[in-house]
């Protein structure tokens, strides 16, 4: 199994990692087509469409992190995951807070 150049049998990993990328390509392409398709066909009322494409976007971002950026739940690299989750928290607070305050201000100005 082990040779000099590839200890820990890294060599058979090639096929696995290639499949990983190709799975990622298939998943993200499907989610993209679904999001555009729903808006193109406009089968749902506007607010439903907005909700569905938002959920699809979150799923696709998770897929990008999982398949292309190789972030998973493994113990040896929790730091990266923690940093992403912390950044997500900051983003939710800043985006949510900004939208809340600006829409509230607008309502008061009317």
């Amino acid at each position, binding site marked *: 199994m082990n040779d000099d*150049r*590839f*200890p*820990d*049998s*890294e*060599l058979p*990993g*090639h096929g696995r*990692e*290639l499949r990983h*990328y*190709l799975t*990622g*390509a298939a998943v*993200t*392409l499907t989610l*993209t087509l679904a*999001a*555009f398709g729903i*808006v*193109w066909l*406009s089968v749902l009322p*506007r607010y439903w*469409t*907005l909700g569905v*494409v*938002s959920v*699809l*976007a979150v799923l*696709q*971002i998770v897929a*990008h*992190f999982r398949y*292309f*950026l*190789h*972030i998973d739940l*493994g113990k*040896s*690299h929790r*730091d*990266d995951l923690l*940093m*992403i989750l912390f*950044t997500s928290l*900051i*983003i939710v607070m*800043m*985006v949510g807070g*900004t*939208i809340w305050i*600006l*829409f509230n201000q*607008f309502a008061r100005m009317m």
Partner: protein
Amino acid sequence: MSHSNRLHGGLNLGQAHAETHRQAETMVFGFWIFLMSDLVLFAVILATYADASVHGLADGPGPAELFELRNPFIETLLLLASSVTFGMAALHLKYQDDRRGLVLWMLATGALGLVFVAMEGWDFYSLVVHDDAPPQRSGFLSVFFLLVGMHGLHVIAATVWMLVLLIQIGRFGLMPDVKLRILRLSIFWHMLDVVWVAIFTFVYLSGVAR
């Protein structure tokens, strides 16, 4: 076994590149911190856009009148394809000592990036010239050009970076420093695709949804 060798986000080079792999842990982590701050920047501009696209029209045209989906759809496919081709380049770097394959996949990625930027430039041109919707028309258009233009500038910067790396591969070969730079560029490139997912959803799809 190979999973316990994972030291950082993005593709890990692993034991076959032992020296580079060890250096990569701190290097990539530092770069990761920069990328997260970049994500926060994009998120906050997007939040401003969410407000301006509703309240900042200044009696000018809104998203529903200005945007169509064909070009953003093609741009989305281009970026997605470029993410996959960069993945192939990274696999060549990791598993094959084959400079030619690596360079060809990187050239394919850069070409897709350039076509993306050219299409975006065309979109901007037709907005300003044909639709009479330049950035100074309204708050909504200012933030639109800021947000999408910022993403386009990132793609241009990444393409220049790729060009520099291709020259370095030619001159120095695949020395550890060059490998580390390719690793960081690959993470940067994939992150730009993540940002684009947010842009096509919350700017284009949400803009034209009825």
